[in-house]
């Protein structure tokens, strides 16, 4: 054993809002079901079963693209007020903020892209309702999932360094023991619940995604429990015909929800376009808290399930969004 050291060059000032214990995560993963069992249930059952008040949740990809909106709406309907989570979102993050569901956030980008700043999140942070915001870059958040997915306490990175983004994070920088140069260490993020929308899944939770996969695979593997919503439920034989198309394997997954148009008003690559009118209408009103509440009342609290939501949107509207050809 040597008595050598490496210097810690810098440390972000924020505590980990979700501390991790890799051996406890291993024990949790060991106990998960390994047999092929039917995990189908409704949005309501899945959220009730796996999301407890105060727990740490992640929602995959951007809120207008392959986003589990039916599950997001159910999260809001259930009335959580103190969730903690990871903010790398657009529409779904804005809705959660509008409904005052979140208390602490690991934050990278929460905005509305072409529509600008997220009004609800601004209100949440500026009013102090959201009590803690820890800063990260997009890559850093993805690598935090990746570290947990690898089962290791951190991954090194060459971003974040030298900035206030680093200072207000929980990252550290050390002198690399191989090169002697500074390198950032991005700590693992083990989520309590990961929520992901996919193109296809079987009832056991084997999932396929068409096109880009965002951070679906990494977040699924970083989560203690994974709730999947899928546009289509397919037979396991379909999965077995092309196992190289499986992006999330069944053993990571705890609940499978059949949610056609589950990303509405967002898009689903190859299946349907986003509902620009619906989104624009929301955003135009989102700077006004009263109008935002009206939106929540109509589209979330006013419906009991995803099926009811789809009826409210209307079949004609939904059909008009469908992509006819590839």
């Amino acid at each position, binding site marked *: 054993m040597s008595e050598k050291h490496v210097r810690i060059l810098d440390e972000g000032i924020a505590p980990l809002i979700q501390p991790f214990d890799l051996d406890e995560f291993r024990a949790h993963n060991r106990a998960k079901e390994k047999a092929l069992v039917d995990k189908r249930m409704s949005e309501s059952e899945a959220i009730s079963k796996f999301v407890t008040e105060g727990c740490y949740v992640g929602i995959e990809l951007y809120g207008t693209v392959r986003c589990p909106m039916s599950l997001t709406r159910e999260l809001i309907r259930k009335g959580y007020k103190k969730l903690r989570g990871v903010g790398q979102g657009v529409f779904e993050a804005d809705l959660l903020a509008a409904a005052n569901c979140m208390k602490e956030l690991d934050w990278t980008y929460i905005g509305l892209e072409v529509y600008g700043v997220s009004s609800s999140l601004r209100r949440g942070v*500026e009013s102090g309702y959201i009590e803690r915001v820890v*800063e990260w870059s997009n890559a850093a958040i993805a690598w935090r999932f990746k570290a947990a997915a690898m089962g290791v306490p951190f991954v090194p990175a060459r971003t974040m360094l030298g900035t206030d983004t680093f200072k207000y994070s929980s990252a550290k920088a050390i002198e690399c023991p191989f090169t002697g140069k500074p390198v950032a260490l991005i700590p693992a993020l083990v989520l309590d619940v990961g929520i992901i929308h996919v193109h296809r899944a079987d009832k056991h939770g084997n999932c396929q995604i068409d096109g880009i*996969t965002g*951070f679906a695979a990494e977040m699924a593997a970083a989560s203690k429990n994974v709730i999947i919503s899928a546009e289509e439920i397919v037979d396991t034989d379909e999965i077995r015909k092309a196992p190289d198309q499986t992006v999330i394997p069944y053993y990571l997954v705890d609940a499978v929800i059949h949610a056609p148009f589950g990303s509405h008003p967002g898009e689903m690559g190859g299946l349907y376009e986003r509902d620009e009118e619906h989104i624009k209408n929301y955003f135009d009103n989102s700077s006004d808290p009263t109008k935002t509440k009206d939106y929540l009342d109509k589209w979330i609290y006013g419906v009991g399930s995803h099926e009811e939501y789809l009826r409210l949107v209307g079949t004609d509207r939904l059909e008009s969004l469908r992509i006819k050809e590839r």
Partner: protein
Amino acid sequence: MAECRYNGTELMICLAARAMVDRTTAFIGTGVPMLAASLAQRMHAPSLMPVFEFGGTGAILEKLPLAVGDMRTYNKGLYASGICDIMEAAQRGFIEYGFLGGAQIDPFGNLNTTVIGNHDKPKVRLPGSGGGNDVGSTCWRTIMIMRQTNRSFVPKVDFVTTPGFLTGPGSREKAGLPAGTGPYRVVTNLATLDFEPESKRMRVLALNPQATLDEVKAATGFELIIPPQIGRNEEPTDEELRILREEVDKEKLYI
């Protein structure tokens, strides 16, 4: 201004497009960068390769994306992967150009997209880093596109979201950021600016058509380096404007 052949956004798109070299890669965010890259592809840089942070590489941009993860970002693409893969390619040195905007920029090109005021009790909460910090850390050349005012061009940003040259020469390398990277151009409604190689401070490179140096100075909250020779940006050509309006953004999403 004398005539309205083009608006300020169109001008900035053309200037950003001209800054890109053919046979390189560009990390594309939503909006102006998208249009600039697409215009460059159709003008002098047919082999400019677009990369989107959520996984799309080599798309044919028949329709402009509305989000950095939408299906247009991998439309007829060469490679549809995910965010880790793209960010790691950038970290490995594969991405030449990155585009950034922000609420504030300082003389070293540091950007703020996080908060105005104090972090923990902000006056204004902004969207945050997103991929900005990663782009600014790992791309070889970052091009900032911003409206120039003395409220946004400030001596010190409230929060360094994305690294420019940090506190000056050598400070990126000292912090551990990859060698040879950093701010390359700032494209504004008034001028194109670059960074003086020795001091790494912002310098006037060329004035926009009709803009004066005094206007540029007045719209900057710190002292700019004024070189003996200042260029003059060419106006958007008819061809640039035609392509921009009829081909690049034919759905009129952005311009």
